[in-house]
């Protein structure tokens, strides 16, 4: 498929949705780096009848890493439009496999800002500098998470899957077992460990499921957007807290990353800030359980990519590269389990 066909397809969708007029034209279209289960394209639309639009096309390509529902993701963005959570407005979705982008897609605004990469030392240093100074990222990361967990569920309950603790463990374990190419005793033991530590359930909340600074946009010292909602579910909010606390998300791959949580905030400060914003008291032992569960989720996702790579379902070399992320995750799980 050509870029011309892609541009025509996006414009057709946006005209149908009333987002652009008949004279609108795409000025630039380019595929962005990143995206594991989604591909992203950036485009600029000039419309003589309205201001220019900076847009993102989010595609679920054939052979996507996870069988996550693009419709759910689109509906989540739409449902959050009037909530105090910074998400880009969406402009419509084409829910067909046979599109010029290679799968179904939706269109959303491109918000200002960039996504920090905590695996780059220079970017960790920039985030640490913010922590030493204004603490805008730290404040927004904690407060926005509390805001996500406070979103009313009436609308979301119709579009977002619900999973309690046991269902979350079972969900990722089933994927791990289906996709595993080799048996991993550390992962197996970790599932047993987690299953035996089921916490007392809280009232379900909207859980982002992949909440970290790298899935946010930051601009001029503040958080301007929360992206990548494909793993969201209605469940225990402490999942997000365990996930954001992973050493991996502080920039560890095989060597330690930042001592700051998610390379952004001191751990106790972040917990206290979230507790104050949410009115929820956090138990460190429960967060530890969710951190191991979150790493098991990451292992299941990486294993899925490796399965697809080995089966020639994708030639994205990043899927194979992820095998080198597994040892560090196992090391962190072992540390949290106290072996």
């Amino acid at each position, binding site marked *: 498929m050509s870029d011309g066909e892609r541009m025509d397809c996006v414009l057709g969708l946006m005209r149908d949705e009333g987002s652009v007029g008949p004279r609108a034209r795409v000025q630039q279209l*380019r*595929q*962005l*780096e*990143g995206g594991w289960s989604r591909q992203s394209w950036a485009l600029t639309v000039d419309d003589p009848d309205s201001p220019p639009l900076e847009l993102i096309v989010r595609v679920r390509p054939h052979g996507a890493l996870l069988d996550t529902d693009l419709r759910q993701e689109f509906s989540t963005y739409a449902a959050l439009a009037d909530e105090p959570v910074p998400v880009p407005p969406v402009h419509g979705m084409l829910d067909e496999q046979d599109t010029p982008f290679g799968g179904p897609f939706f269109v959303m605004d491109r918000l200002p800002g960039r996504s920090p990469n905590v695996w780059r030392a220079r970017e960790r240093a920039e985030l640490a500098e913010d922590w030493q100074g204004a603490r805008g990222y730290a404040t927004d990361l904690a407060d926005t998470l509390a805001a996500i967990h406070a979103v009313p569920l009436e609308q979301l309950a119709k579009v977002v899957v619900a999973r309690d603790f046991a269902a979350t463990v079972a969900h990722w374990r089933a994927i791990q077992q289906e996709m*595993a*190419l*080799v*048996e*991993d*005793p*550390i992962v*197996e*033991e970790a599932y047993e460990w987690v299953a035996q530590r089921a916490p007392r359930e809280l009232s379900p909340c909207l859980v982002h499921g992949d909440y970290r600074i790298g899935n946010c946009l930051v601009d001029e010292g503040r958080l301007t957007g929360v992206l990548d909602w494909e793993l969201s579910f209605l469940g225990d909010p402490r999942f997000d807290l365990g996930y954001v606390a992973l050493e991996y998300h502080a920039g560890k*791959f*095989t*060597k330690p990353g930042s001592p700051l949580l998610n390379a952004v905030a001191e751990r106790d400060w972040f917990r206290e800030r979230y507790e104050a914003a949410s009115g929820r008291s956090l138990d460190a032992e429960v967060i530890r359980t969710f951190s191991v569960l979150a790493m098991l989720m990451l292992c299941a996702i990486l*294993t899925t990519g*490796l*399965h697809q*790579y*080995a089966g020639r379902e994708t*030639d*994205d*070399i*990043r899927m*194979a*590269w992820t*095998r*080198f992320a*597994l*040892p*560090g995750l*196992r*090391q962190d799980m*072992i540390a949290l389990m106290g*072996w």
Partner: protein
Amino acid sequence: MFNPVQPHELMLGVGRVLRRAARTSDSQELDAYQRGQLLSAYSVVRHLAAEQVAAAALMEGMRRRLQACSERSSVPAARPALAAAMAAREPGALGAQLTGLLRRLGSLPEEAQLRCCIHRALAEMTDEEVHALADAEAEA
């Protein structure tokens, strides 16, 4: 140690990426995705090389730790599985043997003691593996 996808498959993948890059670089500028593929391919080769250098020592170290667990163990029924794990010639077989053994161990004190010993062995092996891979990053 229990990582899926064989080294030769990875090398083939790297070759495919580099070939694709070679075909496009003359005619047009690489976009962000293509550049990301090249950088990932580069990272794969580096880590793979480090893994290959360390692989034999990691297996031998694990075999010695399991030998120590076996000598200290008072669970006779576990000895055949431990022996099979020690005899494993590649990480996949080692992982399968240990997964099966750990699954069969119950909660009796001697079983818990053996489980703890195997956990410690896996922890030390993982630390060594991560340390070996970190060498690849040091050379970047």
